[in-house]
């Protein structure tokens, strides 16, 4: 029966039936074929109870906080702050852009939004400083997707909802891998800049301008944005607030900062911003709800146990299993959104890898890292299109220049997968 459920689910997916409805079709299969499954009433009740939890509220709230905070030129403030310190070093400006992407991505929680906001400001700037336009776009497209690894991160919240692993632990585990991936990309950026040569004169002139503003002013301007992740993480780890409450605080913190300090949002704009948040999370809500019902049906059909048996009898080492799973995730990340992929696959795969001794937190980090790079991989990586649109370059040329950055990511991913300590160092 488990096989039939998967067949119906996959066929529906391939024929572009919405992911949520593909799960419903899969869940109805045992009823139609007369096997053990949930009745329709149970499906409705399970979808309801799957949504009836407080932790799930963190999803819309973090998304709203990100939408509010991401407005108002914060990308520029962050960039100037980083450029102040490293702009004069070889490859310093591209590195400052990568850092901006990582931090902005942590605040906004959305890859395409990060690529758009950071790219719109920094691509023209990098071109003015003499860097290749397509190369700059490729770099931002890749770095834009990686912000979701650095907390607060929606994919980690979703993994936590799907598996019951602590959100706080996942957030903490994402920090070093995020820095590592960013670091490897920066190494390549420096190598490229040095090899191609940089327009030192232009850069140092611009740097004088930025430094002329004074560290205090730059710090003051970016301070409120940089403080947001600190408040969220600090609140969670000190035990003062739950992740859901931290998300609420991030909403009101962002609102106060953008209305009163940055003055980037007028009162009349609040409702459109709520609308934008709704548009972002609405497609996720019932995917989560139906995933609960679908998961129960799969459990009744003993699917997780079957998959566990299959993996354990065909692969002997943890390494080979993880490698296989990483490859599957990378391919999946190209065609499927991160959120649904996590809520469907995490509960099915986790029991198997856990019995091989993989830490559930470590597995979550691997999963989120793999899926997030999908935004930058051709043919459909949205970030490539966003960067291409900004720079007015064909997305496929952007993709070509993104390849070395994706390779740098792959090296980091390799280390993250095989050295659990990178993810678990702070736990």
């Amino acid at each position, binding site marked *: 029966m488990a096989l039939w459920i998967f067949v119906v689910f996959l066929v529906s997916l*391939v*024929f*572009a*039936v*919405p*992911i*949520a*409805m593909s799960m419903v*079709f899969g869940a*109805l299969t045992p009823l139609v074929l007369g096997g053990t499954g949930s009745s*329709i*009433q149970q499906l*409705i009740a399970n*979808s*309801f109870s799957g*949504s*009836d939890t407080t932790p799930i*509220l963190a999803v*819309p*709230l973090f998304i*709203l906080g990100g939408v509010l905070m991401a*407005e*108002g*030129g914060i990308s*520029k403030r962050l960039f100037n702050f980083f450029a102040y310190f490293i702009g004069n070093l070889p490859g310093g400006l591209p590195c400052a852009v990568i850092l901006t992407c990582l931090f902005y991505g942590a605040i906004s929680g959305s890859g*395409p*939004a990060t690529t*758009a*906001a950071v790219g*719109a*400001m920094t691509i023209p700037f990098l071109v003015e400083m003499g860097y290749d336009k397509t190369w700059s776009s490729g770099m931002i497209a890749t770095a834009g997707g990686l912000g979701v690894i650095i907390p607060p991160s929606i994919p980690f919240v979703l993994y936590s909802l799907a598996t019951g692993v602590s959100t706080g632990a996942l957030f903490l585990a994402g920090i070093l891998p995020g820095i590592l991936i960013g670091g490897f990309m920066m190494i390549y950026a420096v190598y490229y800049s040095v090899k191609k040569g940089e327009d030192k004169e232009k850069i140092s002139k611009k740097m004088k301008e930025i430094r002329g503003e004074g560290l205090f002013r730059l710090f003051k301007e970016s301070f409120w944005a940089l403080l947001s992740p600190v408040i969220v993480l600090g609140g969670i780890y000190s035990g003062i*607030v739950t992740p859901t*409450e931290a998300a*609420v*605080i991030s*909403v*009101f913190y962002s609102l106060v900062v953008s209305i009163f300090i*940055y*003055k*980037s949002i007028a009162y009349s704009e609040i409702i459109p911003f*709520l*609308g*934008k*948040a*709704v548009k972002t999370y*609405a*497609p996720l*809500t*019932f995917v*989560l709800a139906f995933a609960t019902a679908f998961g129960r049906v799969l459990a009744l059909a003993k699917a997780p146990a079957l998959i566990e048996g299959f993996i354990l009898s065909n692969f002997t080492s943890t390494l080979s299993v993880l490698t296989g799973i990483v490859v599957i995730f990378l391919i999946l990340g190209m*065609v*499927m959104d991160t*959120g*649904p992929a996590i809520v469907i696959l995490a509960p099915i795969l986790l029991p198997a890898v856990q019995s091989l001794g993989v830490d559930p937190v470590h597995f979550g980090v691997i999963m989120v890292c793999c899926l997030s790079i999908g935004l930058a991989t051709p043919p*459909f990586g*949205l970030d490539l*299109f*966003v960067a291409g*649109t900004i720079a007015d370059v064909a*997305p496929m040329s952007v993709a070509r220049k993104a390849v070395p950055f994706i390779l740098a990511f792959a090296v980091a991913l390799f280390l993250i997968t095989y050295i659990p300590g990178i993810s678990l160092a702070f736990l």
Partner: protein
Amino acid sequence: MSVIKWIDEHFEESILIVLLAFISSVMMLQIFARTFFSAFNWPEEFARYCYIWTVFLSLGYTIKKGNMLRVGVVMDLLPMRIRKSLEIVGNILMLVVFIIFFRYSIEYVGKLRVTGQSSPAMQIPMWMMYWSTIVGFGLATIRMAQEIISNFGNFNKMDVETTLEATLKEAKEEVELSTHSKENSMETSGGES
């Protein structure tokens, strides 16, 4: 006439926005209350129920907006007419499922009324909360029927978006949004200096 049009365009959306505003403010209120006085027992339950209504109203909203998450890559490879026909078949199957779920939600709410179960904190009868499933699947049925009618109406037009085009459109929207906010911030920073 324009009222009907507005409802057609924005009905689910406006409720979803109100629900989001409720969820945020009630949860914030709870944090304040807990920090300075003592916690109430109702805000979390209230926010959860707002979220449950959000879940089921999102069905109709995303069908209307055409932004349900899906995997479109394989369909892009097929010829236009086959794609359109498969889409209609898929939509009709979904319509049938929504109608069935709508019917069973009504039955389920009836059962819950008999048991008379109430929510733990606010003492709201549970069947009232399960009304979200009736309304949600009902609206989804209406929206899907609208969608299928427009499918047939547009069958001979060559207007189907590929995943590539849809992605490009989404990318353009993101860029427009961020440039809008950049102009905003430049105005304000200009005012400061």
